[in-house]
Every structure is written in structure tokens, then in C-alpha cells.
């Protein structure tokens, strides 16, 4: 049955309203402050470490993202931890909040489809994440320029920009997951707890559990390499693993592969030589596609559930 009009009618209005709500909400301000303070602390620590140790590095600027100095982890590690938290904070009450405020049926009785409401909320969440991450990225670049005194090269900037896009996609996965649970569970607290639980499981427990699971499912006569490959495949079910591997390939130009290295891959290779950006992109491409596909799958899942849900409070 074909419906009249565009499914996206009202999308811009919903997106702008939700974006405005996010940007002025106390919850978002606290999360943003947390992200900015911790990330800047990590960057400051990285800068002092870089000054001490790696003046000759051709990718000095990229070290800002990856170098850690005890007791602080690297900027990338901070983001891997805090971006999901921020995304979950943006999405865990996106739909059930409308139910609980009893605004859903009133809003949907206006000439818009549910599609526009859901997509608008997702876009607003993603835009909020993007704004926060772009500001953070600019701060980092600025601090790097001032404190290192070395301008980044073109390829370094390209890699840093791709890193930014990958981080946004990584946030998109958790945002879509949080929104899915906000559709499934009427209680915002339940949705938040379930999403946080899944995040902890996928980010902390699953990478440790995957080798054991792989061992259990690998045939007894299989070699160790097969077991490692299966374990790696299982670990890649976690968005955190996908993000970590992508970052590794993009921010460490010497990374030639994200799996086991075979002899034929080493033929003619100059060990320690950096790959051009296009080659690094090829290495990380499956992981990047995986992150985007996971976002789309989770959003579509939420969309299907939302379309079939009763509107009444």
C-alpha cells in the first residue's frame, strides 16, 4: 500500500528541535565537559611525551592521538571509552522519553510520518556527536600546533580527518543501539542499563572471551593460525574492536595488515616503511564498512520495531 506524501516531511523540523534540546541539556553539557577535559589531559600528556622522545618522527602530529604517558591513556583510548558513553547518553531515552512524556501521539498526529521522527532524532544525535568531536578535534589540532610548533603535513591532516569520520561512525553505532533499546523498552532506565551492559560486554568482556569461544568451536585438527583468525573474526563483532583496528591502520601508517601476516605479504616489503594513505584506507576498509553497516542495521532494526509499535502511552 503506497502512502501519500514524503516520508521525510518534517525531518528538518524534528532534527533542529532535537539538536537544540541536546545542545542545551544539562546531560550533554556534563558529558561534553567530561570528554573535553579528559581528552585534553591526554593530549597534554602526549605532547610532553612526544617532546621528550620522538623529535625525528615523520608523523609527529599523528602521535598526538596515539601516544600515552602514564598514568593517562592515549587520546584515542579516551575516545574509544567516552564516545560510546556520549552516544548512549544521547539515545537511551529518544523514543521511550516521548512515550513517557506522552508527547508521541500528539506529535505523530501532526502531518508527519514516524519515519521523519525517528530519523530526525538519529540525525540530531549524530549531529550533536559530530559537533562535539569536531570541536575536540580542532582543539587538539590547535594545541598540537601551538605546543609542538610543527605544522602537520597534508597526509597527516588527511589521516586525522579520516580518524574523525571513523570516530563519528563509531559513535553512530552506539547511538543506533541506544535508540533501538529506547524503542524496545518503555523505561528509559532499563534502556540505559541494557545498552551500557552491552557496551561493557562488547568492549571489555568479549575481546577476552572471543579466543576461548574460538577455541571451543575450532576443529581439533585445525592449526593455531586458523584459531587466531576465528578469534579475530569473533572479536570483530564488537564495534570497539572495529574502531580500534581502523584507528590502528589510519593513525599508524606502518600498519600493513590487521590480521595475521603471511610470508607472501612480506615479500618486497620494507619493514617499518609507512604506507600511503590510500593503502592504509584499503587495510581499514572492511572495518570502516563494518562500523557503518552496524549503524545502518541497528537503525533499521529500530525503525522496523518502531513502525509496528502502538503509539498510545
Amino acid at each position, binding site marked *: *500500500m*503506497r*502512502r*501519500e*506524501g514524503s516520508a521525510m*516531511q*518534517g525531518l528538518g*523540523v*524534528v532534527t533542529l*528541535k532535537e539538536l537544540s*534540546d541536546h545542545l542545551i541539556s544539562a546531560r550533554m553539557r556534563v558529558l561534553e565537559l567530561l570528554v573535553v577535559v579528559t581528552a585534553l589531559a591526554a593530549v597534554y600528556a602526549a605532547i610532553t611525551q612526544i617532546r621528550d622522545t620522538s623529535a625525528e618522527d615523520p608523523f609527529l602530529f599523528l602521535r598526538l592521538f596515539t601516544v600515552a604517558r602514564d598514568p593517562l591513556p592515549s587520546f584515542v583510548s579516551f575516545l574509544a571509552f567516552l564516545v560510546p558513553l556520549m552516544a548512549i547518553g544521547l539515545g537511551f531515552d529518544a523514543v521511550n522519553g516521548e512515550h513517557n*512524556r*506522552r*508527547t*508521541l*501521539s*500528539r*506529535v*505523530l*498526529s*501532526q*502531518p*508527519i*510520518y514516524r519515519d521523519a521522527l525517528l530519523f530526525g532524532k538519529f540525525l540530531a544525535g549524530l549531529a550533536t556527536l559530530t559537533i562535539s568531536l569536531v570541536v575536540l578535534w580542532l582543539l587538539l589540532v590547535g594545541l598540537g600546533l601551538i605546543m609542538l610548533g610543527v605544522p602537520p603535513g597534508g597526509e597527516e591532516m588527511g589521516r586525522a580527518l579520516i580518524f574523525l569520520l571513523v570516530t563519528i561512525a563509531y559513535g553512530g553505532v552506539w547511538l543506533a543501539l541506544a535508540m533501538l533499546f529506547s524503542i524496545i523498552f518503555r523505561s528509559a532506565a532499563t534502556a540505559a542499563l541494557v545498552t551500557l551492559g552491552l557496551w561493557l560486554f562488547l568492549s571489555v568482556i568479549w575481546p577476552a572471551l572471543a579466543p576461548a569461544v574460538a577455541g571451543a568451536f575450532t576443529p581439533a585438527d585445525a592449526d593455531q593460525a586458523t584459531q587466531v583468525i576465528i578469534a579475530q573474526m569473533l572479536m570483530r563483532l564488537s564495534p570497539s574492536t572495529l574502531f580500534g583496528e581502523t584507528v590502528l591502520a589510519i593513525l599508524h601508517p606502518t600498519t600493513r595488515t590487521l590480521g595475521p601476516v603471511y610470508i607472501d605479504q612480506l615479500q618486497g616489503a620494507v619493514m617499518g616503511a609507512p604506507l600511503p594513505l590510500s593503502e592504509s584506507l584499503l587495510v581499514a576498509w572492511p572495518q570502516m564498512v563494518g562500523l557503518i553497516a552496524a549503524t545502518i542495521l541497528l537503525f533499521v532494526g529500530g525503525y522496523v520495531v518502531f513502525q509496528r509499535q*502502538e*503509539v*498510545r*502511552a
Partner: protein
Amino acid sequence: MSDNVIEARGLSKRYATATAVDNATFDVAAGEIFGLLGPNGAGKTTTILMLLGLSEISAGSARVFGHDPMREPLAVKRLVGYLPDSVGFYDHLTAADNLFYTARLIGIPPGERKPRIAEALSRVGLREVAEKRVATFSRGMRQRLGLAEIVMKNARAAILDEPTNGLDPQASLELLDLIRALKASGVSILLSSHLLDRVQSVCDRVALFNQGKIALMGTVAELGRQVLGGGYAVEVEAEGGHDLARRFGALEGVRRVSETELGRWRLTCERDMRAEAAAEVVAAGGRLKQLSLDQPSLETIYTRYFQNTQEVADAA
């Protein structure tokens, strides 16, 4: 083309294990207030959501201003304003900002938004609190803000789901006055409620729902005639007069006469027959002491209907 703004034909909603609405057929005529009445869980809200295209229709059909709510929900929602049961607004926004958001969703041109919002808030008596956050509003004020949204929308029909639910008597009366004003401005209204006595005064016609089915439909007087045997009850108190009970009974339109106490009669009539009853008292040489008219209450009709239905079921 018919004068009906809403037409439901055999409307049904079935879930896996239950039927929420079963074969409901009714019309809402232009300019009338039609009440969908019945207890909680009777299927009123589900019927409303189907009419708005917010819930799928399992069987039957519906037309709202000639549009199919399933195929043309946007056209329906452009013409109809909806006030849900316990309407919710964004608490962190002001009343005006909430309406501003709706105005943008509706697609009201930017230049018209402010004056239309101001006028709508004035009509419902919320102009003074337009810039206050909705979090500070009472339930009655929220309901009125919901009506302001319908006014701002210039809706040709309004669907009000349990509008007086949870309101104190004074707030209920004020809201019912606003609903009458809405009707006076040419808006057709479909109203649902389980508070039969509160909405009886505003409804032109009603349909009484029970367990998903429409049990009774018509004007209150018609329902009274159908269920109680008469739509109007005229109370007469008189002194003297000869054979008044027989005289009242002989009047055309009187269905039953009962002497409630000495010198007091209750006439069950098809129409308002106070004038005829008074004339009979005078003609019989009596002195009229009191004359009053009672419309049957929906509560009474509803209760009696289910008693009768139960008796029939028990007898079978």
C-alpha cells in the same frame, strides 16, 4: 457528497489474542459533537487512533473528510486536530515554544506563526502564561494548551480523547465550555470519555461502547426512549384536580405515568411535555405546585442497558 466529516464502516482492530474494536459503524456529521462513550478499555482510543491513521485497521474502512486514514494519513492529519488522553508537552519549553514546534511541523508559514499562536493561546485563556515553561502547568492548563494547538492548526475537526479525565469539576466545566466554543466556531468534534455525566451536556449524539462494540447510538433522548422507554421525564406536583393520572396517561407522547408520592407524578414522555402536563392540571381544576423536566442521564441509560442485556443473557 455526504455531510459527514467522519465515516466508520465495520471498523475492527484485532490483536493476536484479542479484539479491541469489533465492527464499529458510525458517522460524525459536520458541526456536531459526537461522543464515543464507555468504560476504560472499551475500544474508544483504538478507534480514534485508527481514524487518525496511527493504528492499522484490521477490517472495515474509515473516511475522514473523504480521505482514507491508512493511505492518506497526512491529508487527514492536516484537517484534524487531536487531543490525546493526558496530553503531553515538552516540559522544558514554554507554552508558546511548544506551539511553535507544532506550527513548524504543520507547515504554517513563518509570518503567520506568531499571530496564530497568540490568538490560539488567547482563545483558551493561556495568553498570560505563554512564556512560562509547561513544567509549571496544571493538568487543566495542559488540556487547554492541547485545545490551543487545535485552534492554531485551524482544524476542521477535533478528536478529543478523554478531555476531562483527571480534571477537577471547575476545570472540567471550563474545558467543556471551550469545547462548546470550538463547536460554535464550526469545528466538528469527536469526543471520547468514560465520564458519562460530564460530557452528556455537550454531546449532540453519542455511541456507547462496550467490549469493542457499539452497544447503543443516537441522541440521549433517543437512547432514553430505546432503553428506558422514554426520553424525557416530566415531574409534576399538583394539588387537587380530578383523575390526573388518567388524564396524563391519555396525552399523546406520554408513555408511562407513575405516582411517586401523594400529589407527585412522573411522566415518561417522548418529548418535552411540560406545557401539556401543566394544561391538564389546570383543566382538571388542580393547582400546579411544581413542574420540572429531567433528561435521562447517560449513566442511567448505560446501567439499565447492561442490566437488560444481562437479564436476557441469564434468561437464555
